[in-house]
C-alpha cells in the first residue's frame, strides 16, 4: 500500500463529503437553525438527512443499536452534541457518530466494567479514593438518561431532546455541578463519564464507530496511524493527511 494512493483516497473522501454538505440543504440548514427546527421536527429532520445520506454513500451497517433504545439514543446524541458541538471548525458529536460509539462501548466489556474491581463491600469513600459504587457503566447511563429526562420535564415541561440548546446546556451544567438531587448515581460522575466518552467517540480510531471519516482528527491536524515521523521530527509543523488502522490491514 503506497502512501500516495492513501492520500488520494483521503482527498477523494474529503471532496465527496464537502460536496455532500453543499448539496444537502436540509442537513446544513437543519444544523444551522439547530434547536428551533430541532424542537419542531427533530426526528423527521434526522430521518431526512439519513435518507439522503444513504443515497449518496454506502450504507454503514455499524450504525445500529446494541444497547440503547431509540429514545435513549436520541438523548445521548443530543447531549454529546452539546458537549462537542458542530461549529465552523467542523462536525460535532452527532455527525461524528459519537452516540453510536457510546452505544457500542456500553454493549461490551467497558459497559459491564469487566476489568474493574467490582467486589463488595461497597462504602462511600473520599473523592480521592475514586468510584466506589456497585453500578456498572451501562446501568449508570440508563439511570442518568432517565434522570436527565425527569429533570428536563420538571424544570422545562419538555423532554431533553425537545429543549433549546441553551436549556440543554443548563440541564447538563446542573448535572456537571451536582445541582441535581439524585440518590442512585452521582450526577457529576455521570456527566464526566459522558464527557470522556464523547471525546473518545470524537477521537478514537473510526473502527470503533465514532470519528466518522476521521473528521475528528482532521479538525485538529492529527495524522492518526502513521508508521513513522522520522523525516519530520526535526522540522517545523507539517500537515499530514490522516490514516486509520484500516489503512494498516
Amino acid at each position: 500500500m503506497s502512501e500516495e494512493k492513501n492520500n488520494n483516497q483521503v482527498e477523494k473522501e474529503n471532496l465527496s463529503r464537502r460536496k455532500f454538505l453543499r448539496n444537502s440543504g436540509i442537513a446544513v440548514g437543519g444544523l444551522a437553525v439547530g434547536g428551533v427546527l430541532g424542537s419542531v421536527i427533530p426526528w423527521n429532520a434526522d430521518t431526512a438527512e439519513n435518507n439522503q445520506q444513504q443515497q449518496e454513500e454506502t450504507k454503514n451497517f455499524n450504525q445500529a443499536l446494541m444497547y440503547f433504545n431509540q429514545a435513549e439514543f436520541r438523548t445521548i446524541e443530543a447531549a454529546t452534541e452539546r458537549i462537542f458541538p458542530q461549529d465552523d471548525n467542523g462536525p460535532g458529536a452527532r455527525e461524528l457518530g459519537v452516540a453510536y460509539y457510546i452505544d457500542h462501548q456500553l454493549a461490551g466489556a467497558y459497559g459491564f466494567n469487566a476489568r474493574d474491581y467490582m467486589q463488595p463491600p461497597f462504602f462511600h469513600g473520599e473523592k480521592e479514593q475514586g468510584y466506589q459504587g456497585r453500578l456498572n457503566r451501562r446501568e449508570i447511563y440508563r439511570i442518568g438518561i432517565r434522570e436527565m429526562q425527569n429533570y428536563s420535564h420538571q424544570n422545562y415541561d419538555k423532554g431533553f431532546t425537545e429543549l433549546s440548546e441553551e436549556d440543554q446546556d443548563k440541564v447538563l451544567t446542573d448535572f456537571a455541578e451536582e445541582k441535581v438531587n439524585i440518590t442512585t448515581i452521582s450526577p457529576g460522575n455521570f456527566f464526566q463519564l459522558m464527557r470522556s466518552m464523547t471525546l473518545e467517540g470524537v477521537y478514537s480510531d473510526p473502527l470503533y464507530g465514532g470519528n466518522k471519516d476521521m473528521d475528528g482528527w482532521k479538525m485538529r491536524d492529527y495524522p492518526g496511524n502513521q508508521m513513522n515521523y522520522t523525516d519530520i521530527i526535526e522540522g517545523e509543523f507539517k500537515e499530514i493527511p490522516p490514516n486509520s488502522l484500516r489503512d494498516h490491514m
Partner: protein
Amino acid sequence: MVKTLPKTDVVIVGVGWAGGIIASELTKQGLNVVGLEKGRERETEDYYMVHDELRYALRYELMQDLSKDTLTFRGNEKIRALPMRQYGSFLLGDGLGGAGVHWNGQTFRFLPYDFEIRSKTIERYGKNKIPADMTLQDWGITYDELEPYYDKFEKMAGISGEENPLGGKRSDKYPTPPMKHSPQMRMFKKATEKLKYHPYTVPSANLSEPYENPDGISRAACQYCAFCERFGCEYGAKADPVVTVIPVAKQTGKFDLRTHSWVRRILHKDGKATGVRYTDVTTGEEIEQPADTVVVTSYVFNNVKLLLNSKIGKPYDPSTGKGVVGKNYAYQVVKGSAVGYFEDEKFNNFAGAGALGMVIDDFNGDNFDHSDVDFLHGGYLALTQTGQRPIQNNPIPKESPTWGKEFKQNSLKYINKTLSVSAMGASLPFKQHYLDLDPVYKDTFGDPVIRMTYDFKDQDRHLAQFTAKKAEGILKEMGADKIDTMEELGPYNITTYQSTHNTGGVIMGDDPNTSAVNNYSQMWDMDNLFVVGASSFPHNSGYNPTDTVGALAYRAAEGVIKYQKSGGILA
C-alpha cells in the same frame, strides 16, 4: 491436590525487567531457572494494531486486570481504605515483560546524593533539616559501587544519550548517540542555556540508531511514531525485556518460562525458602515448584504482598516505626509543572517518542543549596515530546470551559500550540506511608490485597511549588504568550494519572533493623530469598526509576550466583 514438580536451581516470580535480567544472567552461567509469569506470553507481532489510543491508553490493554487483583488506598490511618476499582494514578503492567513493555524508555541514573541521602543531608545542613517523621535512609550502597551495573544495563538496552553535566561520574559513554532534536527541544535548550542551567538530551531506551548489544541482540532504530507510553513497540526499537534479555535466557536452553502462573506463596521452612506455590490460571491447578533459591521480581505491590501473605520478614508497624516489610512506600511528585501557550507557533506535537526530550538537573537532588527552602531533594525539569494523542490531550487555558463550544474551539486551537515543562519530583519517605495487607478486600483467589496508606506532605507541596515556578521561568524564556502554572498540589488523588513510579516496601540498607534486603537484594531474614525491583528503593529520586531497577537487578543476579556457590548472607 497440589502437584509438586522437580526441584530447580532458581525460581523467579514475575518476568519483567528484573526477572528477565536475572534469568538471562543466571542461565548464561549455567544455572537452571524456572520463570513464573502471571500473565500471557508477548511478542513484537502483537503490536501490529498498536496505534490505537482507545484500546491501549484508555482501556489498558497491557495492564493487569483489576477485577482479579487490585489494592486498597487511604490517605491516612483514620480513613477506611477502599479498593482502587478503576485505573487512575498509576498503571500495573501485566504479562511477559511486565511494566517494561509499556514504559516510555526514559533511562536516568540516580545521583550520588541519592544513595547516601541521609548522611549527605546531615553533613551539609545538620540533623534538624530532616523532618522528625521523615524516615530518610542511606541505601547501603554508593553510586560508585552501583556504577558498573548501570553501565551494564545501559549497554544491554542500548541507551541513547549524552552525558549529564550534573550527574555522577560515568565509566563509559552511552552506547548510542542522543535522539534527534525537535524545534521544541531546541527552544528548551536555548532557553535553559540562557538561564545558565545545564540542559542535556533525555537518555532514551528508544534507539537513536540500529544497535547490537553485548548479548548479540540486534534491534532497529526508533521511528518517532509517538506510541510508547502504555503501548508496546511494533519495531522492537524500544528496549523491553521481551526483545532483549528474555530471548537470551531462552537461547541457553536453561530457562523454563511458564506464563499464566500466578504465584501465591513463597514456601519456607526453618528460615529458608524451599520454593513457591502457584496457580495455573488456565486450569486452576495448584502447583509447587521447589528451588534452592527464590527470586521475587514482580511489581512493587506484589513483592510486598507475597512476603506478607507468606509470613516472611517483620511487617512494618507505623506506630513504633519497627519492622521492615511495607516500610517507606514512596511515589513521585510530578504535578509541579507548567504549560505555555504559543499563539504564533505551531508544533508537530502529534509526533514523538517516549523518551524524546531535553532536561535539566540544576534543581534535582542536592545540586542546589537547600538552606533557604523548606524541602529536601528536588526533581528534574524536562520538555518531553512523547506524542500527544487526541483523546487524552486537549489543552485549554486554566479556568476556561471543559465542554461545549468554547472548549472545542480552544482545544482545537491549542493542541499544536502548547508546550509543557514538567517536573519529576522526588518522593521522600515518611513514617506514616506504608504498605500492609488489607483486612477486608481479597484478590480473585481469596488472598488479601495490598493496602496503601499515603498522602502528600508539606515536603511534597513545597517541592511541587518550587519546581512549578522554575518550569514557568523556563517557558517564559522560551517565549510563551501565556503560562498556566500549578499553584497548589492538593491531596494525593488515586483517580488522576500521575506516574507509574511506585517504590519501597522491601527496602535495601546495611542494617537488618531498618531494611529488608541488603545491597544484593538478598533478604536479611532468609538468605536464599532475593526480592528485586523498585520495592528496594528507600526513597524515590527525581528521576524515572527503570535504570536503577535494571542496575540493582544486575547486582542481584551477581548475588544469586555468589550465593549458589558460597551460601550465607553476602557482604
